[in-house]
């Protein structure tokens, strides 16, 4: 009896002591030690993060994680995915279960400042919209007063919805679910008149409904939804890596470096391209990865334009135009600071 208690005390004291002293180690070291990047994604949102026909994760958000893996390991496949509901995502990141959250997550001030997290850029500028059945004969969101609205819990969507209906003096009946699939099923079963989420999401979800052609996305965009990758606050090195992987992909598009011509471009004498591809300077070292980090990202994943076209662009069922997600030089908002 005495012995048992003694050993139990010692054991638990050891555990408690470990908990107290375990300072947050550098994420990059952890990632290197385990050999892969643990990436938090959605439970299935076509174009952003969803398993494809072959069972591999694909999408804009997924490609960002692959880019990070390519920068760190030179291997875009050194990444594992954790599908997370909207409700689980921040806790998973805070607790260290994942290294980066790339899950169509809206950058807001409260999330940036109160959750112990940092947003590492915007990889998709989105806005919240509404989807309805064509048979309702509605062509504007301002006609939706009195409707039942299906929405996912734990999202900015839920709050924007309230604000929009309030501002326009309309009423509605919220039907709130935790998981995306549950919202989809309820809307498909006609539990709600309206489905609301980010517009890109609506196009993606519409594809999965039993009769996509019977639904339409209303023209109104009721909010700003800058979606981007998130990392833990307090680890600037890792923050820099994720941030600059995104910027490298944007810079590559701007300079015309693609996954196909990156080997030729490596011989370029343009100093901008040379700095991007690690022929000049030590930009890789400064963020703790090899000097050809951006080369690897572009070679294995592609530049931002390629990623966009491959996942949500005109050639995909989603057929979303570049719109505000075009480069700044082409009238959009995507703008990366120079590598210099």
């Amino acid at each position, binding site marked *: *009896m*005495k012995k048992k*208690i*003694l050993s*139990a*005390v010692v054991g*638990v*004291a050891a555990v*408690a*002591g470990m*908990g*107290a002293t375990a300072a*947050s180690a550098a994420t990059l070291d952890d990632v290197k030690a385990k050999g892969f990047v643990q990436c938090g994604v959605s439970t299935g949102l076509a174009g952003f993060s969803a398993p494809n026909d072959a069972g591999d994760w694909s999408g804009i958000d997924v490609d960002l994680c692959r880019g990070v893996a390519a920068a760190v390991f030179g291997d875009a496949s050194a990444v594992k995915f954790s599908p997370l509901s*909207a*409700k689980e995502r*921040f*806790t998973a990141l*805070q607790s260290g279960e994942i290294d980066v959250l790339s899950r169509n997550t809206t950058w807001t001030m*409260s*999330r940036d400042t*109160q*959750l*112990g997290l940092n947003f590492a850029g915007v990889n998709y500028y989105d806005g919240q919209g509404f989807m309805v059945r064509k048979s*309702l004969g509605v062509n504007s969101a301002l006609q*939706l*007063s*009195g*409707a*039942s609205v299906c929405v996912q*819990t*734990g*999202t900015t969507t*839920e*709050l924007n*919805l*309230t*604000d929009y209906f*309030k501002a326009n003096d309309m009423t*509605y*009946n*919220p*039907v*709130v*679910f*935790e*998981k995306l699939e*549950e919202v989809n*099923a*309820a809307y498909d*079963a*006609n*539990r709600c*008149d309206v489905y609301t989420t980010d517009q890109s999401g609506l196009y993606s979800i519409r594809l999965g409904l039993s009769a996509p052609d019977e639904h339409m996305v209303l023209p109104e965009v009721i909010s700003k939804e800058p979606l981007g990758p998130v990392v*833990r*606050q*307090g680890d600037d090195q890792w923050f820099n890596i994720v941030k600059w992987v995104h910027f490298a992909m944007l810079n590559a598009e701007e300079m015309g470096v693609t996954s196909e011509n990156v080997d030729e471009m490596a011989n370029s004498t343009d100093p901008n391209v040379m700095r991007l591809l690690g022929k000049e300077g030590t930009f890789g070292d400064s963020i703790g990865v090899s000097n050809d980090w951006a080369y690897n990202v572009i070679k294995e994943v592609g530049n931002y334009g390629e990623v966009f076209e491959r996942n949500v662009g005109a050639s995909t069922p989603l057929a979303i135009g570049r719109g505000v997600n075009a480069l700044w030089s082409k009238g959009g908002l995507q703008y990366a600071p120079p590598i210099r």
Partner: protein
Amino acid sequence: MAHQEGVVADADDSGRVSLMNDPKARGLVFQVLLIIFVLFLVYSGVTNAIDNLARAGIASGLGFFGERAGFDIGQSFIPYTNDSTYLRAFFVGLLNTMVVAIIGIFFATIIGFIVGLARLSKNYLVQKFATVYVETLRNIPLLLQLLFWYKAVLSILPSPRQVGLEPGAEVVFSLNNRGLYMPRIVPEAGASLILYAVIIAIVAWVFIGRWARKRQMATGQQFPVFLTGLGLIIVLPLLAYLVTGMPLSLEYASLQGFNMVDGWVVQPEFMALLLGLSLYTASFIAEIVRAGILAVSHGQSEAAFALGIRPNLTSRLVIVPQAMRVIIPPLTSQYLNLTKNSSLAVAIGYPDLVSIFGGTVLNQTGQAVEVISITMLVYLTLSLLTSAFMNWFNSSVALVER
């Protein structure tokens, strides 16, 4: 750490020196040690959590309760708008949980008793039907059953437009995939008298019951308590209704635009959850009831029959009172289970405590530790209250041993 080792060393000394052979003292020492150890665990856990939250830059504390919630809730028994506070949202969720639990317990008990008795029936068909019911429902996970009922409710029922309701026309009763719509009773000035009449009738019923029992003990004469009580509870409010000039009116539901408005609505999420919870728990209660009745020895009913007591009275006065003391303790567990299982509502979109508070509020505030702890505390409190009530009830029906 040093502190801990010190305590352990002290314990060794005190045991070895003087009180080694006194089991009471030895036990006491170990119990005190254990308490210190547990307190230390709790303390280090809490301080660790606070430290880690602070270091990670995550907001903590309960200040968020006073902030504006900013989201809407589909079903609320108290006034709530998106301008209400998080605290009010918490109470909305708590009430929604309690309502579904209480109504669920009510139906589960009734269905459970009926099925339990049916399993003991001599009628082959009834008995087999009850057996199939019990064996099917208690062996399928509740979550699946809830999803089934939700899908069943939603996919069988048509939408309000498909029912062919005329827009704007008042409907007395309508069941569609937006809910079960019935007229709502709207009280007008003076209607409170009717409520008082109901309360007076109930109180009178209780007193008549006591008086009748006393009289029967003294004189042996019986009094139709049930019929009198029923009469009172119908006649008194009716009188009050007429006297106050009929101050109640009905508000009918009607189809306006997308949805039904006005009237009294039972939402499909609530229906599915109630169906799932009551049917599932009823299958366990049925077995408890059956066990309770079988636990009463056959000799008891034979003795009652031998005394010339009719079968009806035999079960009411002899069998059931003895069965109850076997039934009630496990029944309490089932009530607790039902209450806790109601948290599965989150899967079918019913706005219960877990969905509103542990879901939306947690996400909008990001304060997982506080929110989850409070949610757990609430369920603990609900369970302890239920348990306390059932213990009281148990002691009131327990056999008095003489």
